[in-house]
């Protein structure tokens, strides 16, 4: 048995599909039959094209056009007369194998792209690698795994899954994820919870331990993974799965009921989304609204900025679907771990401490304003609240609000309507903002505490760094004190305070947060009903006492133990 980090609850068992991005070894060989070698190359190109066409058609059906366009570009590379004829010429003139000839030609182009002084063009080199890798595999008879067209149900096993892999994969056929790296807040984990697919991450060497076709069973809650389970173990997992499904069904009875404590204290439990398509999962889980709509996904995986119209349509869709429930839309938060190549942002030593989110938006106000205009125009379709990310000083907040006012004036002049009562709030994720939250509270209608970054910045721990991950702990007394400070300062100015980090959905944390007076809990859709069940079992006055106790404690360990014992 192996133990990793339970990242998305649920039980899964099935055949492992191990994705390895191993380097292909290409040797130079001389060939006798030139014509045959040329045919072999042309056949591999045709085969690659057919595979790409297949994926593209599927992508066009399930994804938006922008995303299927990438496959068009890949197909076009395979149709490139220059690339094909140079390779054929090389096979002929040097009498070498197709793999070697193609590699030589493609690497010339990769070298040209990589030498360009433009981040965007440098990334095209990776397109070439992607496409040529497919051709090499077809030439060498190595199976090409396409996550978008799977033949059978599988458990995906990988080092880590990239956003483009999770977007393109066949969700019907994927029973679960197992990865070598990552924690509860890594992309794979968040994606798994959004899709309600069980997942265990941070297993270190699972891609080495598991062989293609092995059967694997795991528990996404506890992080336990069993390789080739015995019949007895398998039965145990089947039972667990049934139990989990039963619990899930029982939670359905909580739909339509308020999130209210035993003593009548009401809170709001809402969900986090990344794209308009995620609303489906939220509605299914009876959300009371959207507490965080991460708009950066509109900007990612494409090669130009999204237009005002495109953004307007996306925001409108979410607002309409949720109306009259509140929708908190966070303005662009790129930089950090989320890169957008076409903005040509230089590589930074410390991207999380760098040019990102509101810093970038205030610097490129023309881009920011397009988003604000789209938001304002969409506001008439529902209950919009606008939220600024990464604010670290009062000046930034005032500047952001000023640009929002400018956008309003523009729309006024154009005679375009927008809602008059839009609440404007900010994320509290930088310690400096938490510390001056008494000042900031006078300028906004709400705070939402972003704990993923707040913990990282407060404790100076990179949450993706495996070696120090144990230091990334939401129970750190410094973090809990900061949260208390923010809630108190917000309430003093009469504004509501929410939380949209992973902490808000953590059942060990919810009692403490309730005691501290948090008004809104925003989480992955999958956590909403369990959180409601928990809230309905608690007494707010008791939790106030509990949090008072906790605030006196010295270490994270002490707090964790106390909570564990309290709810035993």
């Amino acid at each position: 048995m192996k133990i990793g980090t339970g990242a998305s609850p649920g039980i899964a068992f099935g055949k492992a599909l191990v994705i390895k991005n191993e380097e292909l070894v290409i040797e130079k060989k001389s060939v006798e039959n030139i014509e045959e070698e040329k045919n072999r190359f042309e056949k591999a190109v045709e085969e690659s094209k057919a595979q790409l066409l297949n994926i593209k058609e599927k992508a066009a059906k399930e994804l938006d056009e922008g995303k299927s366009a990438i496959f068009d570009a890949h197909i076009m590379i395979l149709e490139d007369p220059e690339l094909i004829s140079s390779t054929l010429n090389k096979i002929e003139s040097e009498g070498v194998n197709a793999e070697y000839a193609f590699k030589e030609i493609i690497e010339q182009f990769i070298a040209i792209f990589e030498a360009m002084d433009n981040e965007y063009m440098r990334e095209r080199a990776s397109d070439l690698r992607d496409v040529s890798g497919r051709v090499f595999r077809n030439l060498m008879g190595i199976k090409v795994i396409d996550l978008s067209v799977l033949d059978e149900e599988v458990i995906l096993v990988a080092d880590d899954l990239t956003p483009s892999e999770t977007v393109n994969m066949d969700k019907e056929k994927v029973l679960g994820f197992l990865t070598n790296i990552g924690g509860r807040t890594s992309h794979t984990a968040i994606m798994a919870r959004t899709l309600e697919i069980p997942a265990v991450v941070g297993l270190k060497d699972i891609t080495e331990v598991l062989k293609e076709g092995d059967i694997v069973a795991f528990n996404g809650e506890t992080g336990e993974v069993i390789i080739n389970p015995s019949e007895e173990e398998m039965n145990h997992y089947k039972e667990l799965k049934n139990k989990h499904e039963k619990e899930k069904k029982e939670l359905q009875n909580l739909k339509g009921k308020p999130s209210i404590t035993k003593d009548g204290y009401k809170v709001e439990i809402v969900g986090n989304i990344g794209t308009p398509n995620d609303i489906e999962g939220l509605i299914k889980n009876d959300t009371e609204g959207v507490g965080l709509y991460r708009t950066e996904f509109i900007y990612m995986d494409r090669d130009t900025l999204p237009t005002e119209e495109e953004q307007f349509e996306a925001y409108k869709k979410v607002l309409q679907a949720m109306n009259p429930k509140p929708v908190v839309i966070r303005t662009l938060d790129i930089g950090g771990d989320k890169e957008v190549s076409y903005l040509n942002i230089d590589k930074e030593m410390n991207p999380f401490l760098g040019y990102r989110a509101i810093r970038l938006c205030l610097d490129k106000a023309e881009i920011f304003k397009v988003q604000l205009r789209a938001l304002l125009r969409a506001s008439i379709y529902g209950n919009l609240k606008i939220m600024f990310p990464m604010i670290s000083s009062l000046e930034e907040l005032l500047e952001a609000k000023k640009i929002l006012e400018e956008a309003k004036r523009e729309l006024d002049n154009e005679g375009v309507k927008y809602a008059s009562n839009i609440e404007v709030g900010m994320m509290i994720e930088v310690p400096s903002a938490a510390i001056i939250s008494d000042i900031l509270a006078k300028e906004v209608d709400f705070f939402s505490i972003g704990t993923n970054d707040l913990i990282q910045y407060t404790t100076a721990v990179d949450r993706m760094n495996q070696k120090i991950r144990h230091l990334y702990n939401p129970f750190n007394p410094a973090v809990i004190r900061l949260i208390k400070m923010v809630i108190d300062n917000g309430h003093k100015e009469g504004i509501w305070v929410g939380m949209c980090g992973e902490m808000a959905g953590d059942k060990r944390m919810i009692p403490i947060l309730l005691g501290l007076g948090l008004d809104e809990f925003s989480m992955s859709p999958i956590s909403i009903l369990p959180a409601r069940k928990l809230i309905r079992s608690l007494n707010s006055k008791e939790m106030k006492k509990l949090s008072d106790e906790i605030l006196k404690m010295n270490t994270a360990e002490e707090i964790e133990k106390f909570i564990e014992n309290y709810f035993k």
Partner: protein
Amino acid sequence: MEKTVKILNESGLHARPASVFVKTASQFKSDIKIKFNGNILNAKSIMNLMSLGLKKDDEIKLIIDGPDAEEAMEALVKLIESKFNEA
């Protein structure tokens, strides 16, 4: 026939406009070449086009020879001048 045109797109001739250009060029029988910085390259090749790394305000010379040269020139010049129908 030859004509010099200027790239107007904000972010230069990146993947999308380059692919639109190649698709359009490939519809014509004529031999279509681009001259830039002293290099003359086949304009029906996306790799060639992208390897030029054309930026906004770069000037390129279109060299077209063949039975439908005139139509090809008209279509390609229009495409470039319309910024490849991008916002």
